[in-house]
């Protein structure tokens, strides 16, 4: 057996490799369910019945897709610029915190309240990502570790706020803030948790980032810096500032996702692990599947959202812990990066 390198594999070959990777990941996840004591087919049937075969399920999928689109589109752009932002969890939390701060302590009138919250969330998430980006651009510190650490710091920061200074007066014994005033709450589709303004915002921003990447000079800069920083330096494209821009965008979009979650589903600030729910990690797979194309993240976010909502169904139906989502994420990522190799190599038998 030998392998033959394909310098430019056909799109069909690449698509087939991705499809096989997804099937393989689902297969192995099935084995894990079996080890847990749930027959794989039962598990997947339940998952489908609770999501795509059910109107309420669809609503659940859609609401999970909202943060995944926002974060996934931002990460697609960041990965193109080779900024490996693993800190979307923290940026979501910080964005949510900034929005909560505005909602709770800044009495703004109805039409301007929500835009201000989104703006605050964007800026806060962007600023939070900037910490890691500055360390990377200035000192060459690997952003994977720093963004990851910033996740935990954000978690404890929110923890401090909801247990301490921001703790609600009306809710004794709970680590929540007071509920947001009505003008700080997003409308949802009736009977669901689908906060459609954020959904529209996410889709628009994903398309906008796609345009930015492929049709603007800034996008060209981002692509050159990501694909070959040495060449960027050589033609005078500033590598550090371009990375910062990528970080601002990816962090800002994660911040927006955080705003959407607290302004609709929770209507208050609370323990941030209940807000982020691992969206930041799953969005890595969204971006990986989207191949660095933010517009595709709309589709791939939907796929991950099915799993996310499905994970919820499995939790309820089989008393699985919330970690079931990590099993999916880990397997998807492993099989996807493995599939790249098989897309780029043809296996030949014989000498």
């Amino acid at each position, binding site marked *: 057996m030998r392998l033959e390198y394909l*310098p*430019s594999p056909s799109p069909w070959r690449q698509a087939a490799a991705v499809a096989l990777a997804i099937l393989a990941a689902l297969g192995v996840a099935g084995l894990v369910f079996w080890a847990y004591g749930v027959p794989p087919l039962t598990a997947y049937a339940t998952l489908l019945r609770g999501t795509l075969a059910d109107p309420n399920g669809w609503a659940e999928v859609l609401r999970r897709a909202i943060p995944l689109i926002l974060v996934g589109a931002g990460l697609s752009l960041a990965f193109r610029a080779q900024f490996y932002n693993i800190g979307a969890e923290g940026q979501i939390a910080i964005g949510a915190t900034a929005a909560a701060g505005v909602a709770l302590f800044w009495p703004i009138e109805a039409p301007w309240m929500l835009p201000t919250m989104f703006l605050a969330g964007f800026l806060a998430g962007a600023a939070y990502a900037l910490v890691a980006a500055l360390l990377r651009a200035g000192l060459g510190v690997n952003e994977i570790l720093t963004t990851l650490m910033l996740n935990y710091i954000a978690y404890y920061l929110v923890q401090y706020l909801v247990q301490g200074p921001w703790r609600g007066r009306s809710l004794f014994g709970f680590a929540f803030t007071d509920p947001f005033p009505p003008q700080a709450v997003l409308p949802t589709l009736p009977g669901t948790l689908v906060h459609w303004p954020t959904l529209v915002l996410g889709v628009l921003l994903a398309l906008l980032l796609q345009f930015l990447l492929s*049709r*603007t*000079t*800034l*996008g*060209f800069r981002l*692509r*050159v810096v990501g*694909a*070959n920083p*040495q*060449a960027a*330096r*050589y*033609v*005078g*494209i*500033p590598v550090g500032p371009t990375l910062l821009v990528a970080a601002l965008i990816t962090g800002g979009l994660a911040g927006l996702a955080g705003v959407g979650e607290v302004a609709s589903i929770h209507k208050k600030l609370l323990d941030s692990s209940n807000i982020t729910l691992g969206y930041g990690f799953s969005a890595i797979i969204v971006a990986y599947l989207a191949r660095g194309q933010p517009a595709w993240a709309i589709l791939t976010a939907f796929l991950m959202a099915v799993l996310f909502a499905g994970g919820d169904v499995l939790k309820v139906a089989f008393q699985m812990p919330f970690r079931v989502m990590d099993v999916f994420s880990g397997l998807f990522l492993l099989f996807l990066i493995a599939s790249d190799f098989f897309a780029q190599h043809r296996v030949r038998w014989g000498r």
Partner: protein
Amino acid sequence: MAEPLLRLQNITKRFPGVVANDGVSLEVYPGEVLALLGENGAGKSTLVSILYGLYRPDAGQILLEGRPVHIGSPLEALRLGIGLVPQHPMLVGRHTVAENLALGIGSPLWPARRIVPLIERIAQGYGLEVNPMARIADLSPGEKQRVEIVRALLRGAKVLILDEPTSVLTPQEAQALFRVMRELRQAGKSLIFISHKLEEVLAIADRATVLRRGRVVGSLAASEASREKLALLMVGRNVSFERKRKPAELGEVVLQVEGLEARSNRGPLALRGVSFALRAGEVLGLAGVAGNGQSELVEVLAGLRRLEGGRVLLAGQPLGPNPAQLFAQGVAHIPEDRIQMGTVPSLSVAENLALRTFHRPPLARGWLTQPAAYRALAQERIRALDIATPGPATPTRLLSGGNIQKVILARELAGSPRLVLAVHPTYGLDVGATELVHQVLLQKAQQGAAVLLVSEDLEELLALCDRIGVLYQGSLKGPFAVEELSREQLGLLMTGGNLAA
């Protein structure tokens, strides 16, 4: 003469689209230096790779001391007694000489310490100076080469292949290497010396075998060989060693460098007060052994490195702060590393051609890029320089080295640059592409650009330049008018000597 130690019979190796070795036969006797000559792409490297077990031949046979052998890997080659001194040393930079030499054959405990006596015995036996405790990263290219030779001998090499060993050496270091080679010949080893430098071959080899386009086109004893004969065999036609350059008409001073100082990446000063002036229409060569400040000088002039002292004036103006502004001021830069620096391999030919001007009309209107303008630009340049690519949208990583260099030339020289910085512009290119690069550079000089050519190929420098300066440990000697310089004098300058008044 005795039985050949090593004999190749009808070795053939094909790659997709090329026959790299076509029925190559040769033999080496004990106590003999065989020179293997050929231009880039003649099949020398493939042959070495076959001998060292990196490639398997498609046809043919290798006989060692009369017995057919199968060389499946470098390790098997070493076990059979075939050692390679590679062109670029294959050593662990952060480890000591002893650690490097113990790798793979050291005793289970204290491998480095226990191998030192063996190293010293071999080093003394053949007059090879090596310090077993030195770190590889601190060694000069010549010293690293000696470590490679000791490694082959430690492993009992009877045949030693030296792959272009002098390409990184000064002429004086090369002389030292030749002394070692003579010692080895005396001891009955067979040496295969790969080179395309004719003088060296005539100086050291007992016989020369010449390859052209994968075939053996001649095999001569040193006594019957001459420079002209070998050159004719190598290129298949009479070559003139004349200068390609006609005396130039010089214009205004384009580049004025005064007391330039700059630091290397590691911190110490790499340029110590370099001064020279370069006029419009002039080609100035910069010679020197790699690592004597050439890269730093070019980087300062290209806006990629801060200058620590002195000043640089471009047409009377100070240099802009970054490469983009310098390019706008008329500085074109053909970088040493054409793949890692000169292009973005995953981007298309069109985008690579746009790297310098993507933010200006017609390629951009405000923030928006103009795909139609990209295509038009690419089509024009592809035609002008005859770039072999399936189309403007093809990623440059799919192009050959020569065509990648053409993309860079097309981009950098498109405007009318005042100053062209060309660093090793023909390194690794085939004859045709080399010819084209030379033509384009000379044409730009003709049109009034000042050209700074950094090269390790002395023939190239002597053929193209009006004046040549030599960098040694960060100081510039010269520049000297090329008519007043010989190769030997250049060599002397490159090793820190001075020209006698």
